[in-house]
């Protein structure tokens, strides 16, 4: 894929230097509704995140737009079907398609979720919660290792919103995630909205959650909107980022330094310009953080 015009837009200083968290700026989730607008308006977005499964097709419009947008912007690949926590065998056919897409796209990185999506060969197409046990840590860390070996690169794993927690939990979620990252060598995609949603549903301290994570492992942040039903909160991605999540984002950056950030929107999708404006809010918060734009690992 020749002629990539993103080098002037995104400095990515020291992206491959050991001990340095790569910096790719501020991105948006690439959605079908915005394909033409991205190409016509060339928005001031540093990078886009694609849903990997949406482009695991042979050709036609999806691949046409993918190639055209990739020629202008860096892309990250974000999957929803890896099912890393499932006790089913890893799906080698899916992994093969993922690897092929990565060869085509040359993404800044590949990510998926700390969850399971199916069992017994049946896919729920949802991000199901894991029990925070030593058994699950060993299982998930081992599978991440296999996936990373297959893909030839380390992946990022994202914390999900949850609505149920399990009685057999042996630790807090942040400890569970940290331990998996330590054992597998994966990086963390920290979804700040998901921390907020789960903290409301389960009654934990969102700031303590962030504080418990290994800061140098956090390579990307997700922001999104949610629906607040009073007694519980659902991660719906159909609203702008809410004030309480912006506040948690600011506190997170103050604690861990500047992190590559993007906004996800999956329903009630507004015009691209609205999301670009919303992204500017993340940019403003990021720029206001006094820490260096490069967080040096301990």
């Amino acid at each position, binding site marked *: 894929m020749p002629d990539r015009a993103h080098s002037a837009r995104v400095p990515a200083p020291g992206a491959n230097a050991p001990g340095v968290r790569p910096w790719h700026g501020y991105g948006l989730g690439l959605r079908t509704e915005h394909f033409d607008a991205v190409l016509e308006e060339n928005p001031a977005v540093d990078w886009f995140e694609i849903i990997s499964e949406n482009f695991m097709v*042979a*050709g*036609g419009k*999806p*691949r046409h737009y993918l190639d055209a947008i990739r020629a202008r912007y860096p892309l990250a690949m974000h999957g929803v079907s890896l099912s890393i926590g499932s006790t089913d065998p890893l799906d080698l056919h899916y992994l093969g398609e993922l690897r092929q897409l990565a060869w085509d796209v040359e993404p800044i990185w590949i990510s998926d979720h700390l969850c399971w999506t199916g069992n017994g060969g049946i896919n729920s*197409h*949802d991000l199901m919660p894991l029990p925070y046990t030593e058994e699950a840590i060993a299982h998930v860390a081992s599978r991440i290792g296999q996936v990373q070996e297959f893909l030839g690169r380390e992946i990022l794993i994202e914390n999900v919103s949850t*609505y149920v927690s399990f*009685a057999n939990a042996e630790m807090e979620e942040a400890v569970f995630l940290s331990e998996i990252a330590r054992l597998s060598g994966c990086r963390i995609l920290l979804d700040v909205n998901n921390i907020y949603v789960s903290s409301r549903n389960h009654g934990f301290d969102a700031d303590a959650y962030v504080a418990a994570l290994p800061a140098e492992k956090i390579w990307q942040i997700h922001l999104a909107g949610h629906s607040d039903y009073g007694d519980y909160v659902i991660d719906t991605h159909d609203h702008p980022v809410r004030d309480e999540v912006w506040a948690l984002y600011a506190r997170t950056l103050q604690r861990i330094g500047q992190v590559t950030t993007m906004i996800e929107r999956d329903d009630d999708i507004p015009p691209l310009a609205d999301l670009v404006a919303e992204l500017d809010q993340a940019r403003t918060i990021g720029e206001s953080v006094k820490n260096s734009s490069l967080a040096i690992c301990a």
Partner: protein
Amino acid sequence: MITLQTLEKRFLAHVRGSSIFPREWCAQGLVNSDIGLSIYANAYGSRLSEALEADHPVLGQYLGDSLWAEFCKGYIEAHPSQVRSLRHFGAQVPTWLANHSPFSGHPVISELARFERSLLDAFDAADGERLDWSHLQALAPGAWPSLRLQFHPSVRLLQTATNAVEIWRALKEDLPAPSASISSEAARLIWRDSDRISRFRPVVANEYLALCGMFSEGEMFASLCEQLATVLAVEVVPATAISFLRQWFDDGIISRLYDADGNP
């Protein structure tokens, strides 16, 4: 001790509505575990129904809310997803509709679904070359009998027994749907054009015969002529066969010419 495998199996069974997840396996957070579990169960049905709706908007319109809900419930139960992408979740919809009452009593419903899926398949099929008529004109006369065609990967040939496509077109244009009836055309040819737009057109009986041979069976031009000679006067066979070829090149659906041995 509850193993991870057991927990996942029981949790998914609950979400799918086939059994109850033990409440004592849930921790009591701020959200009641009944509410928490119902959030996952509701999302499961909604997400799969939405995927079917996205793939079959006109079918949904034709069935109406009540039958659509009955269809979604039945299909989701019968065909739990075994695919990684929702794009393929509805792959068995036409067959399921053809075999389950009350839908099976109305063949037009299954055919409407099959037409919508063919459009989807054409939409994101592999890309491919599109040859023009000059490529055929450049062919040596001696090469014609063994000529075989490779069609564009997006091409689909859909046999139509009913007027499902006419119904689809009317509903798509917000016009009243005609009553279901026997199709006046043998088939529909569906493909994606060079602007990546899905196209379709009717195919009459003789062209359907020709397409079955050269597209579906990969037969040689000489075989096509022999087949046409079984339904047409011999003297009109060459002109008819050439007219079909011309139409296919004009449609932009021929990707490659090759001979009986597979050589270009």
